[in-house]
Protein backbone atom coordinates (compact mmCIF):
# COMPACT_ATOMS: atom_id res chain seq x y z
CA UNK A 1 0.00 0.00 0.00
CA UNK A 2 1.25 3.46 -0.92
CA UNK A 3 0.80 5.54 2.22
CA UNK A 4 1.43 9.26 2.64
CA UNK A 5 1.55 10.72 6.14
CA UNK A 6 0.95 14.45 6.59
CA UNK A 7 3.43 15.86 9.04
CA UNK A 8 3.28 19.43 10.22
CA UNK A 9 5.94 21.21 12.20
CA UNK A 10 4.52 23.23 15.09
CA UNK A 11 5.91 25.25 18.01
CA UNK A 12 6.46 23.01 21.04
CA UNK A 13 3.19 23.13 22.96
CA UNK A 14 5.09 22.53 26.19
CA UNK A 15 7.00 25.80 25.83
CA UNK A 16 6.03 29.48 25.67
CA UNK A 17 4.24 30.18 22.37
CA UNK A 18 3.26 33.45 20.78
CA UNK A 19 2.21 35.13 17.52
CA UNK A 20 4.37 37.35 15.35
CA UNK A 21 3.63 41.01 14.57
CA UNK A 22 1.76 39.89 11.40
CA UNK A 23 -0.43 37.58 13.55
CA UNK A 24 1.06 34.43 12.07
CA UNK A 25 2.34 31.74 14.40
CA UNK A 26 5.79 32.75 15.67
CA UNK A 27 8.02 29.89 14.55
CA UNK A 28 11.32 31.74 14.74
CA UNK A 29 11.54 32.24 18.48
CA UNK A 30 10.11 28.91 19.54
CA UNK A 31 11.53 25.42 19.50
CA UNK A 32 9.64 23.56 16.80
CA UNK A 33 8.59 19.92 16.91
CA UNK A 34 6.48 17.45 14.96
CA UNK A 35 2.81 18.04 15.64
CA UNK A 36 2.22 15.43 18.34
CA UNK A 37 -0.82 13.86 16.71
CA UNK A 38 1.15 13.34 13.50
CA UNK A 39 3.53 10.99 15.31
CA UNK A 40 0.53 8.71 15.86
CA UNK A 41 -0.26 8.91 12.16
CA UNK A 42 3.34 7.93 11.33
CA UNK A 43 3.17 5.00 13.75
CA UNK A 44 -0.10 3.82 12.20
CA UNK A 45 1.41 4.03 8.71
CA UNK A 46 4.44 2.02 9.77
CA UNK A 47 2.28 -0.64 11.39
CA UNK A 48 0.24 -0.99 8.20
CA UNK A 49 3.41 -1.22 6.12
CA UNK A 50 4.84 -3.85 8.47
CA UNK A 51 1.65 -5.92 8.20
CA UNK A 52 0.77 -5.42 4.52
CA UNK A 53 3.92 -4.12 2.83
CA UNK A 54 4.17 -0.95 0.77
CA UNK A 55 5.83 2.39 1.12
CA UNK A 56 5.46 5.29 3.53
CA UNK A 57 6.09 8.88 2.43
CA UNK A 58 6.08 11.89 4.70
CA UNK A 59 4.58 15.09 3.28
CA UNK A 60 5.21 18.46 4.87
CA UNK A 61 4.25 21.98 3.85
CA UNK A 62 6.41 24.33 5.84
CA UNK A 63 9.44 26.62 6.04
CA UNK A 64 13.11 25.58 5.71
CA UNK A 65 13.36 24.81 9.43
CA UNK A 66 10.77 22.05 8.98
CA UNK A 67 13.59 19.79 7.72
CA UNK A 68 14.36 19.03 11.38
CA UNK A 69 10.91 17.58 11.83
CA UNK A 70 11.11 15.73 8.52
CA UNK A 71 14.37 14.09 9.61
CA UNK A 72 12.84 13.17 12.96
CA UNK A 73 9.82 11.70 11.18
CA UNK A 74 12.06 9.70 8.83
CA UNK A 75 14.07 8.39 11.77
CA UNK A 76 10.93 6.64 12.98
CA UNK A 77 10.94 4.53 9.79
CA UNK A 78 9.18 6.06 6.73
CA UNK A 79 10.94 5.56 3.39
CA UNK A 80 11.09 9.09 2.00
CA UNK A 81 9.70 12.59 2.28
CA UNK A 82 8.33 15.43 0.22
CA UNK A 83 8.84 18.95 1.48
CA UNK A 84 6.83 21.77 -0.08
CA UNK A 85 8.65 24.96 0.73
CA UNK A 86 8.03 28.40 -0.67
CA UNK A 87 8.37 31.88 0.82
CA UNK A 88 4.94 32.77 -0.57
CA UNK A 89 3.35 30.23 1.80
CA UNK A 90 3.86 32.41 4.88
CA UNK A 91 0.47 33.33 6.34
CA UNK A 92 -1.49 30.67 4.46
CA UNK A 93 -4.96 29.82 5.69
CA UNK A 94 -6.33 26.32 6.09
CA UNK A 95 -7.98 26.43 2.66
CA UNK A 96 -4.73 27.42 0.94
CA UNK A 97 -2.67 24.92 2.94
CA UNK A 98 -5.08 22.20 1.89
CA UNK A 99 -4.84 23.26 -1.74
CA UNK A 100 -1.07 22.93 -1.61
CA UNK A 101 -1.20 19.60 0.21
CA UNK A 102 -3.74 18.29 -2.31
CA UNK A 103 -1.56 19.30 -5.24
CA UNK A 104 1.44 17.55 -3.72
CA UNK A 105 -0.65 14.47 -2.93
CA UNK A 106 -1.75 14.25 -6.57
CA UNK A 107 1.90 13.83 -7.55
CA UNK A 108 2.18 10.88 -5.13
CA UNK A 109 -1.17 9.17 -5.86
CA UNK A 110 -1.42 7.45 -2.47
CA UNK A 111 -3.85 4.66 -1.59
CA UNK A 112 -4.03 5.93 1.95
CA UNK A 113 -3.38 9.35 3.45
CA UNK A 114 -2.87 9.49 7.19
CA UNK A 115 -2.86 12.69 9.23
CA UNK A 116 -3.29 13.91 12.76
CA UNK A 117 -6.82 14.87 13.75
CA UNK A 118 -5.63 18.34 14.67
CA UNK A 119 -2.49 20.39 14.97
CA UNK A 120 -1.50 21.91 18.29
CA UNK A 121 -0.94 25.37 16.77
CA UNK A 122 -3.82 25.95 14.36
CA UNK A 123 -6.17 23.41 15.96
CA UNK A 124 -8.78 23.92 13.24
CA UNK A 125 -9.30 20.19 12.56
CA UNK A 126 -10.32 20.88 8.99
CA UNK A 127 -7.37 20.01 6.78
CA UNK A 128 -8.23 16.29 6.43
CA UNK A 129 -11.81 17.12 5.44
CA UNK A 130 -10.74 19.77 2.97
CA UNK A 131 -8.27 17.35 1.40
CA UNK A 132 -10.95 14.70 1.01
CA UNK A 133 -13.09 17.25 -0.78
CA UNK A 134 -10.28 18.50 -3.03
CA UNK A 135 -9.06 15.00 -3.93
CA UNK A 136 -12.48 13.39 -4.13
CA UNK A 137 -11.59 10.64 -1.70
CA UNK A 138 -13.34 9.34 1.40
CA UNK A 139 -12.66 11.00 4.76
CA UNK A 140 -12.52 8.80 7.84
CA UNK A 141 -11.67 11.32 10.51
CA UNK A 142 -10.92 11.21 14.19
CA UNK A 143 -9.91 7.55 14.28
CA UNK A 144 -9.05 5.73 17.48
CA UNK A 145 -8.68 2.45 15.59
CA UNK A 146 -7.97 1.58 11.96
CA UNK A 147 -8.22 -1.84 10.35
CA UNK A 148 -7.01 -2.53 6.82
CA UNK A 149 -8.40 -5.46 4.88
CA UNK A 150 -7.22 -5.33 1.28
CA UNK A 151 -8.58 -2.05 -0.04
CA UNK A 152 -11.24 -1.88 2.67
CA UNK A 153 -10.66 0.48 5.61
CA UNK A 154 -12.61 0.27 8.86
CA UNK A 155 -12.30 3.00 11.42
CA UNK A 156 -13.56 3.48 14.93
CA UNK A 157 -14.34 7.18 14.92
CA UNK A 158 -14.02 8.72 18.35
CA UNK A 159 -16.83 10.99 19.52
CA UNK A 160 -17.75 12.61 22.84
CA UNK A 161 -20.33 9.92 23.50
CA UNK A 162 -18.41 6.84 22.33
CA UNK A 163 -17.41 5.77 18.86
CA UNK A 164 -18.86 5.17 15.43
CA UNK A 165 -17.73 2.44 13.05
CA UNK A 166 -17.24 3.81 9.54
CA UNK A 167 -15.84 2.10 6.47
CA UNK A 168 -14.57 3.16 3.09
CA UNK A 169 -12.50 1.80 0.22
CA UNK A 170 -9.13 3.26 -0.70
CA UNK A 171 -8.12 5.83 -1.76
CA UNK A 172 -9.06 7.60 1.45
CA UNK A 173 -7.78 9.93 4.12
CA UNK A 174 -7.80 8.89 7.75
CA UNK A 175 -7.05 11.35 10.54
CA UNK A 176 -6.11 9.93 13.91
CA UNK A 177 -6.28 10.81 17.60
CA UNK A 178 -3.61 9.93 20.16
CA UNK A 179 -5.74 7.02 21.38
CA UNK A 180 -4.94 4.95 18.28
CA UNK A 181 -1.50 3.62 19.21
CA UNK A 182 1.74 4.29 21.05
CA UNK A 183 4.29 5.90 18.70
CA UNK A 184 7.69 4.23 18.66
CA UNK A 185 10.89 6.00 19.60
CA UNK A 186 13.24 6.49 16.68
CA UNK A 187 15.68 3.59 16.85
CA UNK A 188 19.42 4.16 16.68
CA UNK A 189 19.53 2.62 13.22
CA UNK A 190 16.56 4.76 12.18
CA UNK A 191 18.38 7.88 13.34
CA UNK A 192 21.53 6.91 11.46
CA UNK A 193 19.55 6.15 8.29
CA UNK A 194 17.30 9.24 8.34
CA UNK A 195 19.75 11.70 6.82
CA UNK A 196 20.35 9.40 3.87
CA UNK A 197 16.68 9.00 2.94
CA UNK A 198 15.45 10.95 -0.08
CA UNK A 199 13.66 14.25 0.61
CA UNK A 200 12.07 15.74 -2.49
CA UNK A 201 11.81 19.54 -2.40
CA UNK A 202 8.86 21.10 -4.21
CA UNK A 203 7.99 24.73 -4.77
CA UNK A 204 4.58 26.21 -5.54
CA UNK A 205 5.72 26.52 -9.15
CA UNK A 206 6.37 22.78 -9.30
CA UNK A 207 2.78 22.24 -8.20
CA UNK A 208 1.31 24.78 -10.61
CA UNK A 209 0.06 27.06 -7.83
CA UNK A 210 0.61 30.79 -8.05
CA UNK A 211 1.84 32.83 -5.09
CA UNK A 212 -1.32 34.91 -4.78
CA UNK A 213 -3.49 31.83 -4.19
CA UNK A 214 -1.69 31.31 -0.86
CA UNK A 215 -0.12 33.30 1.96
CA UNK A 216 -1.77 36.41 3.38
CA UNK A 217 -2.71 37.46 -0.15
CA UNK A 218 -4.85 34.40 -0.75
CA UNK A 219 -6.22 33.94 2.77
CA UNK A 220 -9.96 33.34 2.99
CA UNK A 221 -10.05 34.68 6.52
CA UNK A 222 -7.96 37.17 8.41
CA UNK A 223 -6.84 37.46 12.01
CA UNK A 224 -7.75 40.96 13.25
CA UNK A 225 -6.62 40.77 16.86
CA UNK A 226 -5.65 38.30 19.49
CA UNK A 227 -5.51 38.13 23.26
CA UNK A 228 -3.44 36.09 25.63
CA UNK A 229 -5.27 33.25 27.25
CA UNK A 230 -6.48 34.43 30.68
CA UNK A 231 -4.33 33.24 33.56
CA UNK A 232 -5.40 29.95 35.04
CA UNK A 233 -7.94 30.34 37.81
CA UNK A 234 -8.06 28.25 40.95
CA UNK A 235 -10.42 25.68 39.45
CA UNK A 236 -13.44 24.16 41.17
CA UNK A 237 -13.12 23.39 44.87
CA UNK A 238 -15.31 20.73 46.40
CA UNK A 239 -15.83 21.13 50.14
CA UNK A 240 -17.20 17.99 51.72
CA UNK A 241 -20.21 18.86 53.84
CA UNK A 242 -21.76 15.44 53.63
CA UNK A 243 -22.45 15.61 49.86
CA UNK A 244 -18.82 15.92 48.65
CA UNK A 245 -19.06 12.72 46.64
CA UNK A 246 -22.17 13.90 44.80
CA UNK A 247 -20.61 17.28 44.06
CA UNK A 248 -17.48 15.60 42.76
CA UNK A 249 -19.41 13.30 40.45
CA UNK A 250 -21.62 16.09 39.11
CA UNK A 251 -18.53 18.19 38.43
CA UNK A 252 -16.87 15.31 36.59
CA UNK A 253 -20.07 14.67 34.67
CA UNK A 254 -20.34 18.34 33.67
CA UNK A 255 -16.80 18.09 32.28
CA UNK A 256 -17.75 14.83 30.51
CA UNK A 257 -15.14 12.83 32.43
CA UNK A 258 -17.79 10.34 33.55
Amino acid at each position, binding site marked *: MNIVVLVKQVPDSGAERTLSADFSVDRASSSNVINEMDEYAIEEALKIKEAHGGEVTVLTVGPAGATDSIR*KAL*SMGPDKAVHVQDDALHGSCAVATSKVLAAALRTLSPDLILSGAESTDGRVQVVPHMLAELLGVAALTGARKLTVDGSQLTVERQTDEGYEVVTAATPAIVSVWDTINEPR*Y*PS*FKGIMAA*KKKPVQALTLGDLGISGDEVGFAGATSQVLEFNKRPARTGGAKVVDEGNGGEQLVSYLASEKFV
Partner: protein
Amino acid sequence: MTSFVESQERRDLRAAVFQLGSRYGESYFYSAAARGAKTTELWGEAAKAGYLGVSIPEEYGGGGGDIGDLAAVVEELATAGCPLLLLVVSPAIVGTIIARSGTDEQRRRWLPGLATGEARYAFGITEPDAGSNSHQIITRARRDGDDWILNGRKTYISGVDEAGHVLVVGRTEDARTGKLKPALFMVPTGAAGFEYQPIETGLVSPEKQFSLFFDDVRLPADALVGREDAGLDQLFAGLNPERIMAASQATGTARWALRKAVDYAGQRKVWDTPIGAHQAIAHPLAQIHVEVEAARLLTQKAAALDAAGDLLAAGEAANMAKYAAAEAACKAVDQAIQTHGGNGLATEYGLVQALANVRLSRIAPVSREMALNFIAQFSLKLPRSY
Protein backbone atom coordinates in the same frame (compact mmCIF):
# COMPACT_ATOMS: atom_id res chain seq x y z
CA MET B 1 33.05 14.58 16.41
CA THR B 2 35.33 16.48 14.10
CA SER B 3 34.25 19.90 15.31
CA PHE B 4 33.04 21.33 18.61
CA VAL B 5 29.51 20.29 17.79
CA GLU B 6 28.43 16.67 17.72
CA SER B 7 27.03 15.23 14.49
CA GLN B 8 23.37 15.70 13.67
CA GLU B 9 22.79 11.98 14.22
CA ARG B 10 24.35 12.14 17.68
CA ARG B 11 22.16 15.10 18.60
CA ASP B 12 19.06 13.34 17.27
CA LEU B 13 19.99 10.28 19.33
CA ARG B 14 20.32 12.46 22.42
CA ALA B 15 16.90 14.03 21.84
CA ALA B 16 15.23 10.65 21.34
CA VAL B 17 16.84 9.07 24.41
CA PHE B 18 16.07 12.09 26.57
CA GLN B 19 12.44 11.95 25.46
CA LEU B 20 12.23 8.30 26.47
CA GLY B 21 14.03 8.87 29.77
CA SER B 22 11.77 11.80 30.60
CA ARG B 23 8.74 9.56 30.47
CA TYR B 24 10.29 7.74 33.43
CA GLY B 25 12.30 10.39 35.28
CA GLU B 26 13.72 10.41 38.79
CA SER B 27 10.45 9.48 40.46
CA TYR B 28 10.45 6.17 38.57
CA PHE B 29 14.12 5.57 39.29
CA TYR B 30 14.03 6.34 43.00
CA SER B 31 10.72 4.63 43.65
CA ALA B 32 12.07 1.46 42.01
CA ALA B 33 15.11 1.76 44.29
CA ALA B 34 12.95 2.25 47.36
CA ARG B 35 10.84 -0.81 46.51
CA GLY B 36 13.88 -2.93 45.80
CA ALA B 37 12.74 -3.20 42.17
CA LYS B 38 14.87 -2.90 39.03
CA THR B 39 14.49 -0.46 36.14
CA THR B 40 13.22 -3.30 33.94
CA GLU B 41 10.64 -1.28 31.99
CA LEU B 42 13.02 1.53 31.07
CA TRP B 43 15.81 -0.92 30.26
CA GLY B 44 13.39 -2.87 28.05
CA GLU B 45 12.17 0.16 26.10
CA ALA B 46 15.67 1.53 25.63
CA ALA B 47 16.82 -1.90 24.47
CA LYS B 48 13.94 -2.22 22.00
CA ALA B 49 14.89 1.07 20.33
CA GLY B 50 18.45 -0.21 20.01
CA TYR B 51 19.86 2.42 22.39
CA LEU B 52 21.68 -0.07 24.63
CA GLY B 53 23.44 -1.75 21.73
CA VAL B 54 24.53 1.38 19.87
CA SER B 55 28.25 0.67 20.29
CA ILE B 56 28.15 -3.05 19.47
CA PRO B 57 29.35 -3.84 15.92
CA GLU B 58 26.59 -4.17 13.33
CA GLU B 59 27.55 -7.72 12.36
CA TYR B 60 26.51 -8.82 15.86
CA GLY B 61 23.20 -6.99 15.70
CA GLY B 62 24.35 -3.75 17.29
CA GLY B 63 24.12 -0.19 16.06
CA GLY B 64 27.68 -0.05 14.79
CA GLY B 65 28.30 3.25 16.54
CA ASP B 66 31.14 4.07 18.92
CA ILE B 67 31.55 4.70 22.62
CA GLY B 68 30.48 8.32 22.10
CA ASP B 69 27.04 7.09 21.05
CA LEU B 70 26.68 4.89 24.12
CA ALA B 71 27.97 7.74 26.29
CA ALA B 72 25.26 9.97 24.81
CA VAL B 73 22.66 7.35 25.77
CA VAL B 74 23.85 7.05 29.36
CA GLU B 75 24.19 10.82 29.70
CA GLU B 76 20.72 11.60 28.39
CA LEU B 77 19.09 8.96 30.60
CA ALA B 78 20.88 10.45 33.60
CA THR B 79 19.85 13.93 32.49
CA ALA B 80 16.28 12.66 32.57
CA GLY B 81 16.84 11.44 36.14
CA CYS B 82 17.65 7.79 35.43
CA PRO B 83 21.38 7.06 35.84
CA LEU B 84 21.56 3.39 34.81
CA LEU B 85 24.79 2.11 36.35
CA LEU B 86 24.75 -1.20 34.49
CA LEU B 87 25.13 0.61 31.17
CA VAL B 88 28.60 1.62 32.30
CA VAL B 89 29.45 -1.98 33.03
CA SER B 90 27.61 -4.26 30.62
CA PRO B 91 27.73 -2.83 27.09
CA ALA B 92 30.61 -0.40 27.73
CA ILE B 93 33.28 -2.29 29.67
CA VAL B 94 32.36 -5.90 28.93
CA GLY B 95 31.11 -5.12 25.41
CA THR B 96 34.26 -3.25 24.45
CA ILE B 97 36.64 -5.84 25.88
CA ILE B 98 34.91 -8.70 24.09
CA ALA B 99 34.48 -6.77 20.83
CA ARG B 100 38.15 -5.74 20.80
CA SER B 101 39.79 -8.81 22.32
CA GLY B 102 37.45 -11.78 22.10
CA THR B 103 37.87 -14.59 19.60
CA ASP B 104 35.42 -14.67 16.69
CA GLU B 105 33.50 -17.37 18.47
CA GLN B 106 33.36 -15.35 21.70
CA ARG B 107 32.11 -12.32 19.83
CA ARG B 108 29.37 -14.39 18.24
CA ARG B 109 28.45 -15.81 21.61
CA TRP B 110 28.44 -12.70 23.81
CA LEU B 111 27.83 -9.65 21.64
CA PRO B 112 24.34 -10.30 20.19
CA GLY B 113 22.83 -10.30 23.70
CA LEU B 114 24.49 -6.97 24.45
CA ALA B 115 23.27 -5.62 21.12
CA THR B 116 19.64 -6.33 21.97
CA GLY B 117 20.08 -5.44 25.64
CA GLU B 118 18.67 -8.82 26.65
CA ALA B 119 21.94 -9.95 28.20
CA ARG B 120 23.57 -8.20 31.11
CA TYR B 121 27.11 -8.82 32.25
CA ALA B 122 28.82 -7.57 35.39
CA PHE B 123 32.49 -6.70 35.59
CA GLY B 124 34.64 -7.68 38.57
CA ILE B 125 38.11 -6.32 39.12
CA THR B 126 38.01 -4.83 42.66
CA GLU B 127 39.13 -7.02 45.55
CA PRO B 128 39.22 -6.20 49.27
CA ASP B 129 42.95 -5.58 49.00
CA ALA B 130 43.03 -4.49 45.38
CA GLY B 131 40.92 -1.43 44.64
CA SER B 132 43.06 1.45 43.47
CA ASN B 133 45.98 -0.92 43.34
CA SER B 134 44.89 -3.62 40.93
CA HIS B 135 48.41 -5.08 40.90
CA GLN B 136 47.41 -6.74 44.17
CA ILE B 137 44.73 -8.92 42.59
CA ILE B 138 44.95 -12.44 43.99
CA THR B 139 41.98 -14.10 42.28
CA ARG B 140 43.72 -16.84 40.36
CA ALA B 141 42.99 -19.42 37.69
CA ARG B 142 44.94 -22.63 37.18
CA ARG B 143 44.71 -25.15 34.40
CA ASP B 144 43.10 -28.51 34.94
CA GLY B 145 43.23 -30.37 31.66
CA ASP B 146 41.48 -28.02 29.23
CA ASP B 147 39.48 -26.40 32.01
CA TRP B 148 40.26 -23.54 34.33
CA ILE B 149 39.81 -23.66 38.10
CA LEU B 150 39.11 -20.22 39.60
CA ASN B 151 39.70 -19.24 43.24
CA GLY B 152 39.53 -15.87 44.96
CA ARG B 153 37.13 -13.09 45.82
CA LYS B 154 35.88 -9.75 44.56
CA THR B 155 34.06 -6.90 46.24
CA TYR B 156 31.77 -3.97 45.33
CA ILE B 157 30.78 -5.65 42.08
CA SER B 158 27.63 -4.02 40.67
CA GLY B 159 24.60 -5.79 39.28
CA VAL B 160 25.63 -9.41 39.84
CA ASP B 161 22.03 -10.29 40.76
CA GLU B 162 20.88 -9.07 37.33
CA ALA B 163 23.74 -10.50 35.31
CA GLY B 164 24.04 -13.83 33.54
CA HIS B 165 27.82 -13.71 33.72
CA VAL B 166 30.55 -11.73 35.41
CA LEU B 167 33.67 -10.81 33.47
CA VAL B 168 36.22 -11.52 36.19
CA VAL B 169 39.75 -10.14 36.15
CA GLY B 170 42.00 -12.83 37.57
CA ARG B 171 45.53 -13.98 37.10
CA THR B 172 47.15 -16.97 35.52
CA GLU B 173 50.59 -18.30 36.21
CA ASP B 174 53.12 -18.01 33.41
CA ALA B 175 54.30 -21.55 32.74
CA ARG B 176 57.88 -20.44 32.13
CA THR B 177 58.56 -17.61 34.59
CA GLY B 178 56.00 -18.40 37.28
CA LYS B 179 54.90 -14.72 37.16
CA LEU B 180 51.23 -13.88 37.54
CA LYS B 181 49.59 -12.03 34.66
CA PRO B 182 46.05 -10.70 34.39
CA ALA B 183 43.54 -12.82 32.49
CA LEU B 184 39.82 -12.31 31.96
CA PHE B 185 37.14 -14.95 32.42
CA MET B 186 33.41 -15.00 31.70
CA VAL B 187 32.00 -16.68 34.80
CA PRO B 188 28.32 -17.76 34.87
CA THR B 189 26.58 -16.36 37.98
CA GLY B 190 25.11 -19.84 38.56
CA ALA B 191 28.43 -21.70 38.43
CA ALA B 192 29.11 -24.27 41.16
CA GLY B 193 31.43 -22.83 43.79
CA PHE B 194 30.50 -19.21 42.96
CA GLU B 195 28.63 -17.39 45.71
CA TYR B 196 27.74 -13.73 46.07
CA GLN B 197 26.35 -11.64 48.91
CA PRO B 198 24.89 -8.14 48.79
CA ILE B 199 26.79 -5.29 50.43
CA GLU B 200 24.54 -2.93 52.36
CA THR B 201 25.22 0.64 51.20
CA GLY B 202 23.53 3.98 51.76
CA LEU B 203 23.08 4.40 48.01
CA VAL B 204 19.51 4.77 46.77
CA SER B 205 19.81 2.86 43.53
CA PRO B 206 18.06 -0.08 41.86
CA GLU B 207 21.49 -1.57 41.16
CA LYS B 208 23.20 -3.32 44.06
CA GLN B 209 26.78 -4.21 44.90
CA PHE B 210 28.05 -7.65 45.90
CA SER B 211 30.93 -9.55 47.44
CA LEU B 212 31.91 -12.50 45.25
CA PHE B 213 33.50 -15.75 46.40
CA PHE B 214 35.07 -18.23 43.98
CA ASP B 215 35.81 -21.60 45.50
CA ASP B 216 37.24 -24.02 42.92
CA VAL B 217 34.92 -22.74 40.20
CA ARG B 218 35.44 -24.94 37.15
CA LEU B 219 35.31 -23.07 33.84
CA PRO B 220 35.61 -24.40 30.29
CA ALA B 221 38.67 -23.41 28.25
CA ASP B 222 36.75 -20.81 26.23
CA ALA B 223 35.74 -18.90 29.38
CA LEU B 224 39.12 -17.19 29.02
CA VAL B 225 38.46 -14.06 26.96
CA GLY B 226 40.92 -13.50 24.14
CA ARG B 227 44.44 -14.67 24.65
CA GLU B 228 46.06 -15.74 27.88
CA ASP B 229 49.12 -13.57 27.32
CA ALA B 230 47.26 -10.39 26.30
CA GLY B 231 45.37 -9.85 29.55
CA LEU B 232 46.73 -6.41 30.35
CA ASP B 233 46.19 -4.90 26.89
CA GLN B 234 42.69 -6.32 26.85
CA LEU B 235 41.96 -4.79 30.22
CA PHE B 236 43.21 -1.41 29.07
CA ALA B 237 40.84 -1.54 26.10
CA GLY B 238 37.98 -1.42 28.58
CA LEU B 239 39.31 1.45 30.65
CA ASN B 240 38.63 4.34 28.29
CA PRO B 241 35.00 3.32 27.71
CA GLU B 242 34.57 2.85 31.45
CA ARG B 243 35.84 6.36 32.23
CA ILE B 244 34.00 8.00 29.36
CA MET B 245 30.79 6.34 30.50
CA ALA B 246 31.31 7.23 34.16
CA ALA B 247 31.98 10.83 33.14
CA SER B 248 28.83 10.90 31.01
CA GLN B 249 26.72 9.44 33.79
CA ALA B 250 28.06 12.21 36.04
CA THR B 251 27.51 15.09 33.60
CA GLY B 252 24.00 13.76 32.98
CA THR B 253 23.22 13.77 36.68
CA ALA B 254 24.78 17.23 36.96
CA ARG B 255 22.53 18.54 34.19
CA TRP B 256 19.52 16.94 35.85
CA ALA B 257 20.31 18.56 39.20
CA LEU B 258 21.08 21.92 37.59
CA ARG B 259 17.79 21.88 35.70
CA LYS B 260 15.87 21.16 38.89
CA ALA B 261 17.71 23.95 40.69
CA VAL B 262 17.09 26.43 37.88
CA ASP B 263 13.39 25.57 37.67
CA TYR B 264 13.01 25.97 41.39
CA ALA B 265 15.05 29.17 41.58
CA GLY B 266 12.96 30.71 38.81
CA GLN B 267 9.72 30.13 40.70
CA ARG B 268 10.36 30.16 44.41
CA LYS B 269 9.76 33.60 45.94
CA VAL B 270 10.90 34.31 49.47
CA TRP B 271 10.88 38.08 49.23
CA ASP B 272 9.50 39.88 46.14
CA THR B 273 11.63 38.34 43.41
CA PRO B 274 12.26 34.70 42.56
CA ILE B 275 15.31 33.50 44.51
CA GLY B 276 17.10 32.92 41.19
CA ALA B 277 17.47 36.70 40.89
CA HIS B 278 19.76 36.78 43.93
CA GLN B 279 23.34 36.45 42.77
CA ALA B 280 24.14 34.21 45.71
CA ILE B 281 21.78 31.68 44.12
CA ALA B 282 22.38 32.51 40.44
CA HIS B 283 26.17 32.65 40.31
CA PRO B 284 26.90 29.21 41.74
CA LEU B 285 24.44 27.76 39.22
CA ALA B 286 26.03 29.68 36.37
CA GLN B 287 29.45 28.52 37.52
CA ILE B 288 28.31 24.91 37.64
CA HIS B 289 26.82 25.24 34.17
CA VAL B 290 30.24 26.29 32.88
CA GLU B 291 31.97 23.42 34.68
CA VAL B 292 29.46 20.86 33.39
CA GLU B 293 29.86 22.09 29.82
CA ALA B 294 33.66 21.94 30.19
CA ALA B 295 33.42 18.37 31.47
CA ARG B 296 31.08 17.42 28.62
CA LEU B 297 33.49 18.82 26.06
CA LEU B 298 36.36 16.82 27.58
CA THR B 299 34.19 13.71 27.60
CA GLN B 300 33.20 14.14 23.97
CA LYS B 301 36.84 14.70 23.08
CA ALA B 302 37.83 11.50 24.85
CA ALA B 303 35.09 9.58 23.05
CA ALA B 304 36.12 11.00 19.67
CA LEU B 305 39.77 10.08 20.25
CA ASP B 306 38.82 6.58 21.38
CA ALA B 307 36.64 6.12 18.29
CA ALA B 308 39.50 7.35 16.12
CA GLY B 309 41.75 4.69 17.64
CA ASP B 310 44.12 7.04 19.47
CA LEU B 311 43.78 5.15 22.75
CA LEU B 312 46.66 6.87 24.52
CA ALA B 313 45.36 10.39 23.94
CA ALA B 314 41.86 9.13 24.67
CA GLY B 315 43.09 7.79 28.01
CA GLU B 316 44.44 11.16 29.04
CA ALA B 317 41.24 12.95 28.03
CA ALA B 318 39.08 10.25 29.64
CA ASN B 319 40.80 10.62 33.01
CA MET B 320 40.49 14.40 32.85
CA ALA B 321 36.84 14.06 31.82
CA LYS B 322 36.10 11.61 34.61
CA TYR B 323 37.69 13.93 37.16
CA ALA B 324 35.99 17.09 35.89
CA ALA B 325 32.61 15.40 35.52
CA ALA B 326 32.58 13.93 39.01
CA GLU B 327 33.52 17.27 40.56
CA ALA B 328 30.85 19.09 38.56
CA ALA B 329 28.22 16.49 39.48
CA CYS B 330 28.98 16.65 43.20
CA LYS B 331 28.83 20.43 43.10
CA ALA B 332 25.64 20.45 41.07
CA VAL B 333 23.71 18.18 43.40
CA ASP B 334 25.03 19.99 46.47
CA GLN B 335 24.06 23.39 45.08
CA ALA B 336 20.69 22.11 43.87
CA ILE B 337 19.96 21.00 47.43
CA GLN B 338 21.03 24.39 48.76
CA THR B 339 18.81 26.14 46.22
CA HIS B 340 15.82 24.09 47.37
CA GLY B 341 16.25 25.02 51.04
CA GLY B 342 14.48 22.47 53.25
CA ASN B 343 12.85 20.88 50.22
CA GLY B 344 16.32 19.88 49.08
CA LEU B 345 16.30 17.18 51.71
CA ALA B 346 12.76 15.93 51.04
CA THR B 347 12.72 12.59 49.21
CA GLU B 348 9.99 14.01 46.93
CA TYR B 349 12.57 16.09 45.06
CA GLY B 350 15.01 13.22 44.54
CA LEU B 351 18.03 15.38 45.28
CA VAL B 352 18.94 13.93 48.65
CA GLN B 353 18.92 10.46 47.09
CA ALA B 354 21.27 11.68 44.37
CA LEU B 355 23.76 12.89 46.93
CA ALA B 356 25.34 9.50 47.57
CA ASN B 357 25.09 8.52 43.89
CA VAL B 358 27.15 11.49 42.71
CA ARG B 359 29.58 10.96 45.55
CA LEU B 360 30.18 7.53 44.04
CA SER B 361 31.41 9.17 40.84
CA ARG B 362 34.40 10.51 42.80
CA ILE B 363 35.33 6.98 43.94
CA ALA B 364 34.47 4.55 41.16
CA PRO B 365 35.45 3.20 38.71
CA VAL B 366 38.65 5.08 39.40
CA SER B 367 39.03 7.42 42.35
CA ARG B 368 39.60 11.12 42.04
CA GLU B 369 43.10 10.67 43.45
CA MET B 370 44.07 7.93 41.02
CA ALA B 371 42.76 10.00 38.10
CA LEU B 372 44.85 12.94 39.28
CA ASN B 373 47.84 10.62 39.79
CA PHE B 374 47.49 9.60 36.17
CA ILE B 375 47.37 13.20 34.99
CA ALA B 376 50.30 14.19 37.21
CA GLN B 377 52.43 11.36 35.88
CA PHE B 378 51.25 11.04 32.30
CA SER B 379 50.48 14.64 31.36
CA LEU B 380 52.81 16.53 33.71
CA LYS B 381 55.57 13.91 33.95
CA LEU B 382 55.80 14.31 37.72
CA PRO B 383 57.45 11.55 39.77
CA ARG B 384 55.23 9.07 41.59
CA SER B 385 55.00 8.29 45.30
CA TYR B 386 53.90 4.67 45.08
